[in-house]
């Protein structure tokens, strides 16, 4: 084996032995460091995965949704608009949608009532989301009762539960027939919540939206790309919120690392002096301390990332659920598809491993460049 490699092996052996002598302190440091990486990696992986998941689901969403605005507020839209929009070149599959929210005092939660585009349940029956079923303790065959817009009691037979894979957006959903929906909310025939449409050529989406606004100045077209951006910024904002909360932990770690790295104990200084006196070069000391810093930071990084992976993809980020998934009463239960963005991981590694290793090396270098004659005194 070349002497250079053998030398590095010796230095690593010595580093491990030196670390074992101060195992309590090193273990504490690795634990705090691991916690920090765990938090950062969890937030990063969760937001990335949920954005990816939401992005995939939004791919099924209509390319354009047209809402009618009255005094700056979203209002019901007449079916007349649909014919005019369908006449715009490139627009297709124009249809009116019916959806709305209903507050249920029993669970103190908001439910989303929707009429599906296809396969709507027959009148008097509903399909419900898994979160809602859990909250109400309901199963297929049970009856759900709600008070409608006029205070009248509406009872629906539960015909089916929505698929668990779609729970991220259907946790609180109730799918029902158009007839039931209109009766429940008191919406006249010929009025819809909004209008959805597809565009034949995806490059003409913006053009079609412009034509709709031109034709109907009281409408607001929402593009799928805008919805995707909104989701992205929503999760980015929540990610920022969690990271802000943990900024204190980050600062504490920085102080700990700096204290550990900058405050070489008298024993450590003496040890460096002895090593130099017996023939170690400054570069050997720095290499040894670099191994030590790299070992601590890499161990913590790998442990933190592995724990975060298990936390996010095994338990659906159970620790950050309230912040990252929202403040709703009905938490969706879903398992994210494991995915790790290598670039993000590299950035995280760079931001955690490199500063710590550098912080460890600098004070040791300062000690190592002094003459070793102090050990003779």
């Amino acid at each position, binding site marked *: 084996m070349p002497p250079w490699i053998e030398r590095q092996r*010796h230095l690593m052996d010595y580093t491990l032995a030196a670390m074992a002598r101060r195992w309590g302190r090193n273990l504490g440091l690795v634990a705090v460091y691991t916690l920090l990486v765990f938090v950062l990696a969890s937030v990063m992986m969760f937001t990335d995965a949920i954005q990816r998941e939401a992005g995939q689901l939004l791919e099924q969403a209509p390319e354009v949704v047209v809402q009618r605005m009255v005094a700056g507020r979203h209002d019901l839209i007449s079916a007349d608009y649909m014919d005019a929009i369908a006449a715009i070149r490139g627009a297709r599959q124009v249809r009116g949608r019916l959806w709305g929210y209903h507050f249920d005092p029993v669970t103190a939660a908001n439910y989303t009532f929707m009429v599906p585009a296809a396969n709507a349940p027959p009148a008097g029956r509903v399909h419900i989301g898994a979160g809602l079923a859990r909250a109400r303790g309901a199963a297929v065959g049970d009856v759900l009762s709600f008070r409608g817009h006029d205070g009248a009691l509406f009872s629906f037979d539960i015909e089916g539960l929505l698929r668990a894979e779609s729970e991220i957006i259907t946790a609180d959903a109730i799918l029902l027939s158009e007839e039931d929906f209109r009766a429940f909310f008191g919406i006249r025939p010929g009025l819809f919540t909004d209008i959805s449409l597809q565009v034949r050529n995806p490059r003409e989406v913006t053009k079609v939206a412009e034509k709709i606004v031109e034709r109907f100045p009281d409408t607001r077209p929402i593009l799928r790309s805008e919805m995707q951006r909104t989701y992205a910024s929503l999760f980015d904002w929540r990610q920022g919120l969690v990271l802000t909360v943990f900024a204190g932990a980050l600062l504490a770690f920085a102080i700990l690392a700096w204290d550990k790295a900058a405050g070489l104990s008298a024993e450590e200084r003496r040890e460096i002096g002895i090593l130099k006196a017996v023939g170690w070069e400054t570069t050997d000391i720095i290499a040894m301390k670099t191994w030590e810093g790299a070992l601590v930071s890499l161990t913590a990084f790998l442990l933190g990332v592995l724990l975060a992976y298990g936390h996010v993809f095994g338990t659906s980020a159970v620790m950050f659920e309230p912040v990252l998934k929202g403040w709703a009463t009905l938490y969706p239960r879903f398992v994210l598809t494991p995915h790790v963005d290598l670039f993000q991981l590299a950035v995280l590694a760079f931001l955690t491993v490199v500063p710590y290793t550098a912080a460890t090396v600098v004070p040791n270098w300062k000690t190592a460049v002094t003459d070793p004659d102090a050990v003779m005194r």
Partner: protein
Amino acid sequence: MIELRNVSKVFNEGRHNEFTAIRDVSLRLADREVTVFTGPSGSGKTTLLTLVGCLARPTVGRIRLHDRDISGLPERFLTQVRRHSFGFVFQQFNLISGLSAVDNVMLPAYPTGRPRSGLMARALELLELMALAERADAPVEWLSGGEKQRVAIARALINDPPVLIADEPTANLDTAMSRDFLAILERLVEQGKTVLMTSHDPLVYEAAMVNTVVSLRDGRVETVP
């Protein structure tokens, strides 16, 4: 042959606490001999050894090791000279606690990149010579003063340097252990090593094996018999 020409060493130069430890010392130290530096505390004995052993550079003057000027070498080369030419036995032994005796002995050889198996064999051989084979795996803090010193001697010899430097080697030993130490030194000199020591101890500087006693006072050479 180690030669010092008009060597001075000043600490904290230019500051209010400037202190001259060595003043204009010129000496020739012969190979394969035992030289002892004596003198009262603060006379500059230890500083002189640090200069000869390349642990520090002189402020003024030249030090030559076998016709090579080592006083002006850059730190990296100075370390290489120190590693290959000098073995040190410090007054407080300066072993690294927490490590075993054999690990301490191998320390100076790590930067050489010698294979671990050969290094371990040599370290064990040296410990056996010091009658410490059975204590090889013991952490050094478990060893007695005499055992620690023998580990320090084994460590000083791991790179097979021609010169052994010992600073007050018997200061922490009783008479019996001091005699054992001198016996070890005698064997090393017979094997061709040069030994440079500082000592207050008459048991050391009056020993038959000592060839030269250099007396220092106030940083100057007082007498060279």
